[in-house]
């Protein structure tokens, strides 16, 4: 409480209010003092009888004073005091005076940091992100092993009876659930549509801790056979297909023609463990949408099993308990064909399974590429800085002579590099932000193309520039700034005043153009060239792989063929199926623009073709149970070979007009002929395989077709056996149409042909076979694209680095060149003198790069296709490319040296 009292006059209150408001712009320390001073003056004026207008004029003047003082005090606080503010101001000024240097440095940094930030976004998404479930570290994939357990047994899915058999003995798990991918036709809400679903055992949602957005999820009671047929919708399906209807629970939908009731909607973002589910069907209700035998047969392995480790149970202890289950399974389910196959149970943490090894390797390769690029960026910028420090040497010497301490000088240089790194970081993050769409697309593409085999737990919608990514980008920037700031800062700290003042900032002639830091710059140039060569040869190897993948004989001609999937449903009998197929083919073949049409259960290069065991060759039974040879088994219409242009190399194709009761016939592939009938003509012999539609009746071989690539292009085609769908129709598969013109024009024709026969049947997965071949080479292409982009960016950066290095040398030696020319040296000699050192550096860089490439590209081996990591051609071409670009980068400034005017260069000193 003050010992004096302000009079209660309203004008005084107003005036003091203005002063109080004004004081707010004065920074903290000075605010109180400022107000006290002005109030004291106000008091005096009031006491001396100043009128209201005068008082208001006075306090408004005060407000102006407050604004001015506030600004000044802030500026003083920033620039005075710590000395860092001063450094900042100086650094800003110096950078503004060298706009070219600043722009190039920021650009180079932005490129390096942008590429790395974008990369980190995808790396984090693929490798670092935790699965989005509670306590994901306790989730384990429970795999069934089968075969010779002493050797490397196959990991196979579970059959439902086997899962049910062990479910109660899984003591080491708190809970476990089985699931399988399937797809069904959804009708009852608009046009029929094909949707991916998961058939799940009870407890699936509880296991993963998935909550419902509407209604409830499947409960344990759903297991009883014949319990009500209820399904759970994905949030996306609910939003898209049901318009987010809040009253969706209880509505009925038709799946493959059977009625189901909607039980609830899963939380947003959840697409199941297969990553693409739109709908969940309890296992008990699955017979309504699929052949019930898939669920009932002991040896029908379709399910994956996920479990949650019991609290306090470690992975190793759980593995020990799991191994005991194997023998129980073998005892309960002995190999029906008398083979020696034994069961085992293996546990793998969910986190490890999120990526297959090849994808992990691919992502790592790209990550290493990005890291190399960052190193090149840092080396490049360090080179720029060293040059700049050398150029500023006289300036530094003057400042040191005027009393600036060495620490202070070093701090200034460091501040400059941090500023540049900060600007480059911001620009880089902005670039990455722009590139985010690209990364998102790449990940979505990778998901689509690799499907459940690798990135199944990844949600592309969750990708984005969050705080971590942003922080990483800026962190990289600061790190880069420190790294490339320290070297020049130390050089500035060590400056030799007398010599530098005398040299006037230029290398003296006695030093032969060398100066402090020159050796280091040379080293940086060599390093950049070497790393660039590593990147170039990596990209070159991928390019070679890609081009060789293109040379792989596919066994068919994808050009001009469009394919679409259909599925009649489990209730369609063989006669109905045959009628459907015949009617669709008849309609398609009658269309103009259709050259040929056929149906077959499986499309080439999609890696989704069924394989079954070989059972019989002529009269000989093939023993070995599940260890027997595996073959692709497929039903096709007789026009399949013609439509896909698969050459028949021996015998003929499948005859037309076969009846189901005729003796079965088959066409086998060349691989099957080689493997099962070595050295003899297989035509006329008989072959038997497990096939749900032929049973195991052996079929007479009528011809041999060329090998078609059904699975990975990188692998040799597996043996294949083709049955006529007239004898063994499947009721689902692919419609292939070869167009005489653009196949895209035939897509509506396929839909119309199918709808004309079955108005409720959707066709889906419509694409040309060329597109499918492109998808099959996607991994190689994506890695190739990224490595090539890194390689070319690196090449550009190295060229800039070398160009800068040579330009700088030329500039420093202008006087020497002038003198030499005055003394009669010709241009050729000058050019030689100027390029000798750069060429030595390029040679050293190339040599180091070859060593580095040989060391690092080994790790690409598994990603390569029929090319060795040390392929001499690829390496030579990479070296040539580097040499060509480096030579150009060095020659341009060197040529400039030969145009030096001797008189002017000498006079300039």
């Amino acid at each position, binding site marked *: 409480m*003050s*010992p*004096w009292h302000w009079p209660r006059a309203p004008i005084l209150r107003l005036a003091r209010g203005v002063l109080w408001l004004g004081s707010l712009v004065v920074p903290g320390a000075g605010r109180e*003092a400022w107000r*006290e*001073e*002005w*109030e*004291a*003056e106000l*008091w*005096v*004026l009031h*006491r*001396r009888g100043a009128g209201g207008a005068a008082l208001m*004029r*006075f*306090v*408004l*003047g*005060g407000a*102006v*004073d407050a604004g*001015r*003082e506030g600004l*000044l005090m802030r500026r003083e606080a920033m620039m005075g005091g710590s000395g860092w503010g001063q450094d900042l101001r100086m650094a800003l000024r110096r950078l503004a005076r060298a706009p070219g240097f600043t722009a190039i440095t920021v650009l180079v940094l932005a490129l390096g940091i942008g590429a790395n930030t974008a990369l980190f976004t995808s790396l984090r998404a693929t490798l670092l992100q935790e699965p989005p479930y509670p306590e994901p570290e306790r989730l384990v994939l429970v795999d069934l092993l089968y075969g010779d357990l002493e050797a490397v047994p196959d990991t196979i899915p579970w059959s439902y009876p086997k899962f049910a058999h062990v479910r109660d003995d899984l003591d080491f798990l708190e809970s476990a659930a089985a699931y399988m991918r399937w797809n069904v036709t959804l009708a009852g809400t608009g046009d029929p549509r094909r949707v991916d679903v998961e058939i799940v055992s009870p407890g699936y949602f509880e296991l993963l801790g998935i909550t419902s957005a509407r209604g409830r999820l499947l409960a344990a009671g759903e297991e009883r056979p014949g319990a009500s047929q209820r399904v759970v919708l994905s949030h996306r399906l609910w939003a898209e297909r049901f318009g987010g209807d809040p009253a969706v629970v209880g509505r009925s939908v038709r799946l493959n023609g059977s009625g189901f009731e909607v039980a609830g909607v899963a939380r947003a973002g959840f697409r199941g463990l297969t990553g693409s589910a739109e709908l969940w069907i309890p296992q008990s209700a699955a017979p309504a949408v699929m052949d019930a035998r898939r669920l009932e047969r002991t040896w029908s392995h379709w399910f994956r099993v996920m479990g949650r480790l019991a609290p306090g149970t470690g992975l190793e202890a759980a593995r020990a308990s799991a191994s005991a289950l194997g023998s129980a399974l073998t005892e309960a389910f002995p190999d029906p064909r008398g083979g020696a196959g034994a069961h085992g149970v293996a546990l793998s943490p969910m986190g490890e399974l999120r990526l297959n090894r090849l994808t992990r390797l691919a992502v790592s390769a790209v990550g290493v590429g990005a890291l190399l690029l960052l190193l090149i960026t840092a080396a490049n910028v360090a080179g720029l800085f060293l040059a700049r420090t050398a150029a500023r040497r006289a300036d530094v010497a003057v400042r040191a002579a005027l009393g600036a301490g060495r620490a202070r000088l070093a701090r200034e240089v460091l501040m400059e590099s941090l500023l540049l790194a900060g600007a480059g970081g911001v620009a880089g993050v902005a670039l990455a932000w722009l590139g985010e769409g690209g990364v998102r697309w790449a990940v979505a593409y990778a998901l689509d193309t690799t499907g459940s085999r690798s990135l199944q737990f990844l949600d592309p919608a969750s990708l984005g520039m969050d705080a971590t990514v942003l922080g990483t980008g800026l962190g990289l920037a600061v790190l880069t700034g420190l790294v490339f700031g320290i070297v020049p800062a130390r050089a500035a700290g060590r400056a030799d005043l007398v010599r530098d003042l005398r040299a006037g900032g230029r290398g003296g002639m006695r030093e032969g153009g060398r100066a402090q830091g020159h050796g280091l710059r040379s080293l940086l140039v060599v390093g950049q060239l070497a790393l660039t060569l590593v990147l170039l040869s990596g990209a070159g190897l991928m390019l070679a792989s890609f081009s060789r993948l293109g040379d792989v004989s596919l066994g068919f001609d994808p050009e001009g063929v469009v394919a679409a999937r259909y599925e009649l449903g489990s209730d369609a009998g063989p006669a109905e199926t045959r009628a459907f197929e015949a009617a669709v083919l008849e309609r398609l073949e009658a269309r103009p623009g259709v050259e040929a049409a056929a149906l077959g259960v499986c499309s080439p290069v999609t890696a989704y073709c069924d394989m079954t065991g070989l059972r019989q060759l002529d009269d000989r039974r093939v023993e070995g149970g599940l260890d027997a040879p595996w073959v692709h088994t497929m039903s096709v219409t007789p026009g399949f070979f013609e439509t896909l242009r698969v050459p028949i190399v021996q015998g003929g194709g499948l005859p037309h007009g076969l009846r189901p009761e005729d003796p079965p016939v088959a066409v086998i592939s060349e691989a099957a002929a080689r493997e099962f009938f070595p050295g003899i003509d297989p035509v006329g012999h008989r072959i038997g395989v497990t096939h749900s539609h032929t049973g195991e009746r052996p079929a007479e071989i009528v011809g041999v077709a060329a090998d078609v690539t059904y699975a990975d292009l990188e692998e040799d085609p597996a043996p294949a056996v083709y049955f006529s769908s007239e004898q063994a129709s499947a009721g689902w598969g692919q419609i292939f149409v070869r167009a005489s013109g653009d196949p895209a024009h035939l897509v509506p024709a396929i839909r119309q042909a199918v709808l004309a026969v079955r108005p409720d049947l959707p066709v889906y997965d419509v694409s040309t076979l060329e597109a499918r071949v492109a998808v099959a080479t996607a991994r190689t292409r994506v890695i190739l694209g990224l490595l090539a982009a890194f390689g070319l960016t690196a090449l550009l950066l190295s060229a800039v680095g070398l160009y800068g290095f040579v330009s700088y040398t030329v500039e420093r030696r202008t006087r020497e060149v002038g003198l030499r020319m005055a003394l009669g040296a010709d241009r050729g000699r000058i050019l030689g003198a100027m390029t000798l050192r750069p060429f030595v550096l390029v040679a050293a860089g190339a040599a180091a790069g070859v060593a580095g490439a040989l060391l690092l590209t080994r790790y690409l081996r598994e990603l390569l296709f029929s090319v060795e990591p040390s392929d001499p051609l690829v390496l030579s071409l990479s070296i040539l490319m580097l040499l060509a670009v480096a030579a150009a980068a060095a020659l341009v400034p060197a040529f400039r040296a030969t145009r030096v005017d001797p008189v002017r260069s000498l006079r300039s000193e």
Partner: protein
Amino acid sequence: MSPRSLGWATTAVLAAVRAGRSFGADIMEATDLSGGSVYKILRRMERRELLESRWEDAVVAEAEGRPRRRYYALTEEGEVALAEALERFRTLTSDLAAEGEAG
């Protein structure tokens, strides 16, 4: 290193301070300048170290039942600068007067 010459208003403020008008209101009265102008000059002069300021003893202010004041005084440099400025104005005005008489 010659200091920037002082303008008329600044010279007047410094002269008022030397004449014993040691805080804002008094200086305003003596120079007929507005509060804003006076303070602008006071701040600038203090930064140039031609003026220095001190806070009045709180006991004195309390005894007189009013807020504490901030008093300004000339530094040695301020004395010199003021003397130079006054001399310059005197010369200038007498030269101009002489010119006027001659004209």
